[in-house]
């Protein structure tokens, strides 16, 4: 077991608590930088997808995990980001400004939804966000002159300064830089007053107000940032899939994102990465499973949503803290071995405040 001697308050603010953490995160970064030179291009592509899921997940985690506002329509913001970027880029806006503008447009729409959703919590907010996602999906399929509707929209190859960002390796590094930046922004936010205000709103709105937290501002900001990050992920995603259809952004994608934050672990930054890994690996696992299942089951189209839903339910019931919570338990089992007490993590059953009926 490691005991850290704290002699300065800055130690509680720093990104890394001790050199061990510095070493392991440094090693992870080095591995990620070297990875594309050693891995086959399929795996480079899969890692790029993983980064995109992490960016989208960071946005949703900020909203659900930290501010306690449940959104079940985040696919809409990915769609807005993807189409905004693709359309702007095709119109001749340079690559990076176009990415940024996609994030801003998505963030702006997020702010509007945020203001509209101010008076809603829990299940009502979930239903409202689902409806929003349906509206966006319909708008995309109907607005054919701009989006191409169901015929699809071809995303142009991203070439800038003579560099082809569409090539696997360059795009991989682009996503790596963006995901690192987004994670740093999120962590910074969480260790400063506005992050604490978000958590305060999640745990007790009444008390947050009594502490001087402006509910309107905090919730709107959470929605805006969440939509902007998810929109940015959508913009990157558009290059990865190459051709945009409204079918890419259905409720199934929203549920996938929801699964990311719940399975990863609500209210934890590590949970974002764990959840993203989980949802990137899951489709592969399902594909492999299909080979072993009896034909009548393997050929069913509903197999994937069924597995998604069951896993989501399983985690909500048996491990509400998600993979990160599980990891913390396993880690403390080994660090305290053989003194680990089974009841260490037993708590009173508690619900999200927003879920309670007042």
């Amino acid at each position, binding site marked *: 077991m490691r005991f850290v001697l704290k002699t300065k*308050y800055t130690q509680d603010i720093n990104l890394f608590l001790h050199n061990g953490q510095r070493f392991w995160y440094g090693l992870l970064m080095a591995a990620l930088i070297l990875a594309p030179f050693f891995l086959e291009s399929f795996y480079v592509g899969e890692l790029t997808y993983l980064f995109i899921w992490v960016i989208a997940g960071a946005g949703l985690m900020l909203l659900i995990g930290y501010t306690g506002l449940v959104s079940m329509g985040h696919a809409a913001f990915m769609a807005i980001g993807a189409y905004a970027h693709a359309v702007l880029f095709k119109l001749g806006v340079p690559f990076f400004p176009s990415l940024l503008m996609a994030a801003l447009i998505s963030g702006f729409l997020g702010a509007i939804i945020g203001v509209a959703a101010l008076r809603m919590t829990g299940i009502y907010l979930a239903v409202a966000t689902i409806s929003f996602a349906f509206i966006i999906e319909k708008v995309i399929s109907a607005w054919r002159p701009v989006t191409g509707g169901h015929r699809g929209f071809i995303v142009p190859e991203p070439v800038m300064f003579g560099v082809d960002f569409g090539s696997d390796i360059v795009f991989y590094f682009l996503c790596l830089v963006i995901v690192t930046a987004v994670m740093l*922004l999120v962590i*910074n936010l969480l260790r*400063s007053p506005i992050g604490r205000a978000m958590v305060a709103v999640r745990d007790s709105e009444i008390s947050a*107000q009594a502490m001087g937290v402006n509910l309107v501002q905090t919730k709107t900001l959470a929605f805006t940032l969440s939509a902007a990050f998810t929109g940015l992920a959508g913009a990157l995603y558009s290059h990865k899939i190459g051709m945009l259809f409204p079918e890419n952004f259905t409720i199934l994608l929203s549920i996938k994102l929801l699964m990311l934050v719940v399975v990863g672990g609500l209210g934890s930054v590590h949970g974002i990465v764990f959840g993203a890994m989980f949802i990137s690996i899951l489709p592969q696992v399902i594909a492999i499973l299909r080979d072993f299942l009896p034909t009548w089951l393997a050929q069913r189209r509903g197999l994937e949503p069924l597995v998604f839903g069951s896993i989501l339910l399983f985690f909500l019931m048996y491990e509400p803290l998600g993979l990160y919570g599980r990891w913390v338990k396993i880690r403390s089992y080994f660090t305290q071995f053989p003194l680990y007490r089974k009841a260490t993590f037993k708590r009173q059953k508690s619900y999200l405040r927003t879920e309670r009926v007042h």
Partner: protein
Amino acid sequence: MSIFAAKEIGVSFGGVRALHDVSFNVEKGEIFSIMGPNGAGKTTVFNLISRFYDLDQGDLFLNDERISNIPPHEVAARGIARTFQNTELFENETVLQNLLTAHHTHRSTSFLSEMFFFPHVRRQELAFREKVEDIIDLLDLQSYRDQRIDALPFGARKIVELGRALSLEPQLLLLDEPSSGLNPEETEDLSFWIEDINEELGVTVIMVEHDMNLLGQVSGRVMALSDGELLTIGTPDEVREHPDVISAYLGD
């Protein structure tokens, strides 16, 4: 000079008159208590001051400034902090984070500078932390510092909530039944703390309380309410012996 004044305040919920025509002044540096049977409207007074309810009649003044229609989060910025009868802490956070949250109104950084964690954000965090540590020392919360609220016993939560209200550095502190759920020993500690807070930090206190011992020990004046009406205001002894108060508690 009165730091706080309520003039003929009243509120009804549907047909229920929760508070009617209640007026009182609180002097700077005073410990002012509100007592009364269940449903008398004591907590309603606090919820009106916190702006969780809108006044139907009357006005509230802080330092002669009208605060009857400022938004709820503005109340804290004006220097009014409060606790809740059954504690309303941020349950999934540590004691330290709870106390730090109370510094929200003192922040001078914008969310953009916070996202990039510029040096002045770090300096501000350190300044907040030092002030929080002073409160932790005052209330002997050292051993709870890094514990999550949902792992704390109720008595400790009450003290943490007091600490969180103090971290706001208020000029006026509203305590809603601070001794409920505490054992006699903890109540004793509490009475010393309330006196310390009042004398050393110079905070004016308004307190809703049932415990007559605690009332008698710390408060200068007491206001008795019953069924939303003001019965009397006076020293603890005067109020205790007032015929209206006795009949409100015991019946005629």
